[in-house]
């Protein structure tokens, strides 16, 4: 039997390799200094999905919500082994917090219909909330296993997974369909060169139309024909709007987000003076003394 596995991923600003000032003087994020990357733990979720596909046979659908250029993480998913991809993109989705995001993703999952597993990264490196996965499971009314390291066994009806807990791990089991959030416990495989050669040509409708308008050439019929051709060879990235997935406009985007950002503070860490401690018994003793005085120790 073949399973259907959905992996939800996110394109995030790279907060680890910052190439300039991360924050603008006005306290907003400086996108230019932060290249957009595949959220690291979502790559772990994708890797687990690919391993399940190799072990049990599965159709792997990768979805993301984001601006049109988030199609890039979907192409990267195809380079690694995804079968189908979906981009949720609509101005109405913009400004979503975790509640609105999980609602939109739940509509997308319902639109896909039958599935056995949903995999998400534990959390994204931009917001660090770890809420979207669990909220999505609640909205779909399916069981969830968070902090998953690996799947021990997948059967027709159940999944047994190993999840990370403080100081060790535990093995839990639940019925399908289920949602799992995945931690950094596997080594995501590199992109495959042959898949890059193939899927670099995968396009969304926006990208296809843009290619046409860039060429000052728009012809609805030709556009449709090209779309059909791309679909036929598996090079189509499905682009869905809020209405395509039947989402309630009141529950998505800024409107559907009760989280209000009151203030963003740009914390500038400045290096303080350092102190040299002699590598002698006396030096170490005086350091210990100072740390105890400071209440750093003891």
């Amino acid at each position, binding site marked *: 039997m073949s399973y259907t596995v959905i992996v939800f991923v996110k394109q995030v600003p790279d907060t680890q390799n910052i190439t300039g000032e991360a924050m603008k003087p006005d306290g907003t994020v400086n996108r230019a200094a932060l290249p957009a990357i595949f959220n690291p733990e979502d790559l772990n979720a994708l890797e687990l999905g690919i391993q399940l596909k190799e072990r049990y046979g599965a159709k792997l659908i990768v979805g993301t919500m984001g601006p049109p250029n988030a199609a890039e993480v979907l192409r990267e998913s195809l380079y690694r082994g995804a079968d189908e991809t979906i981009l949720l993109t609509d101005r109405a989705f913009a400004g979503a917090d975790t509640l609105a995001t999980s609602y939109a993703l739940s509509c997308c999952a319902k639109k896909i219909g039958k599935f056995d597993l949903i995999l998400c990264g534990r959390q994204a490196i931009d917001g660090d909330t770890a809420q979207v996965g669990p909220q999505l499971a609640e909205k779909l009314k399916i069981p969830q296993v968070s902090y998953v390291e690996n799947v021990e066994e997948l059967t027709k009806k159940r999944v047994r997974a190993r999840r990370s807990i403080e100081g060790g791990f535990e093995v839990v089991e639940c019925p399908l369909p289920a949602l799992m959030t995945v931690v950094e416990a596997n080594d995501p495989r*590199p992109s495959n*060169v042959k898949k*890059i050669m193939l899927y670099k040509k995968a396009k969304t409708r926006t990208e296809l139309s843009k290619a046409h308008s860039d060429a000052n050439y728009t012809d609805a019929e030709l556009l449709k024909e090209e779309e059909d051709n791309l679909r036929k060879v598996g090079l189509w990235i499905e682009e869905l709007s809020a209405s395509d997935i039947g989402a309630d406009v009141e529950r998505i985007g800024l409107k559907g987000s009760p989280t209000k950002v009151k203030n963003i503070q740009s914390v500038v860490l400045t290096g303080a003076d350092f102190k040299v401690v002699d590598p002698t018994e006396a030096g170490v003793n005086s350091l210990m003394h100072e740390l105890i005085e400071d209440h750093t120790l003891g």
Partner: protein
Amino acid sequence: MSNFFTDNPDLQFALENIDLEEVVTLRERNYDFSKKFPHAPSNYEDAKDNFRRALIEIGEVTGERIEPRARTVDEEGPVLKDGVVIYHPLTVDNMNDLTNAGVMGVMLPHKYGGLNFPNTVYTMMTEMVSRADGSLQNLFGLQDISETISEFGSDEQKKRYLPRFATGEYDGAMDLTEPDSGSDLQSVRLKATQDPKTGKWYLDGMKRFITNGCAKIHLVLARSEEGTTDGRGLSMFICESCPELVVRRIEHKHGIHGVATCELQYNHVPAELCGIRKRGLTKYVMSLMNGARVAISGQALGIAQAAYVEARKYAREREQFKSSIDKFPAVYDMLTRMKIKLIAARTLLYETTKMVDLRQCYTRLTESSSPADLSQEIRDKQKFYNKAAAVLTPMAKAYCTEIANEVAYDGVQIHGGTGFMHDFNAERFSRDARITNIYEGTTQLQIVAAIGGVMLRTLDTMMDDLSALSYEGLLARLNKRLGKMRELLRKGVKFVHEKRDGEYQALVARHLVTMETYIFVGHLMLKDALKDSEREPLAEQFVVNAVPEIETAYKIVVSGDMTTIDKHKDIIDY
């Protein structure tokens, strides 16, 4: 942690400026393959974009994943346990990464699951893999074996083996060397006997120094014609690992610790003939070796690149006498020479791979068409590229592997005392580089292979074209100097011709090949500088350094001095 493609401007320059359109158009059958294989490129721009993307990907795999594992792999290496070679777990990770990245059948045709990339792009990958871990190249590079099956095997053999090579399921070994047959492969003794009833072949004997001798698939050079003693009695066989094929030991080596070098015993190993009987050495091994020589040149260059980057970093960070050591003339002079050697070797190597690619395309074209369909132009091209590749391959191998040793040696020197310690990578690079000018034919044998083409002035037409480029100012002056050097080379060649003394020619051959290499590379450096003015100082430095070397070599060649020939015994045995 870095990307070994995007952090290397010279390698990117090489890709951007090498014109492979003719090669790719022929390989992709005028892009007809794109109709049948959806990943195949639909035009040259598409193909070039594929190369760039693939190299960025492999740059990341090698820089981010493989390089951090290299030191442990070097220290711990593979082990032989109960006759089974067990690779280091990190080496296994490396191979999994390369397999997942889909680069285990880089040059194989589309129909067998390969990428159908030219040798040039494959060699660029080789370079990056070797920079990350010199020993890993020996496993990555064994895909050359599938290339040989692809070139010479039967259709049935191709179908059976190649797809599994492309997915990385099969690994290979080429079993050539024996205890008494190293450089002299004509004397190979491993016996191949045919069962008269079944027609099946069996192999008996020993092989030594076999890289990855634990492989699943072996290409074996064996004596199929009883009673013969020369190369014409040898055939090529394919065999699979089996209980009759015993790994007796793995060698304890000076460098490239990560790969198992095995001694093999054949106890009546079932085998099948690959290609035509008696062509084993004369055709197939020569082809295999030529491919491997290019690969080892890439390996050497990658190790040299690693050594340079490490030395450059150390010289910037290390402070002595209240200044970073790269401010001292003795040190920056060393770094400059190292860098120039790297750049020179790279431009020579990729000119060579381009000729190798063109030769393969035109050879395939001439072999697959009926003689009546072949135009004179195609025949001439095939002949020319064949000759050019035949002289450039050993020239590149000699130059790349010798400069790799020099660069790695200087890399240790720049590190001073720390360079002598295992805690730093510099010493590993010098150990890993050391094999490159020995295996797949020592430098001395590369000279033997190249001297014929030098004496016949095979590269003169290419150099005529290069020197006719429209240079101005500095580059024009350098071009003139190279022209004068070529005059000296011609005189040297004429002198040796007229001397009609085989031993004298063999003795001065290395000087003639050195002259040819410097002059040819000088022209390539000028051509590169024409495309990018930032490369002018590189070209200038190269030519300025090369001139006195060429003049010295010339003096030796035309000296006619016979003392080495006449007196070497007295000197050696004093």
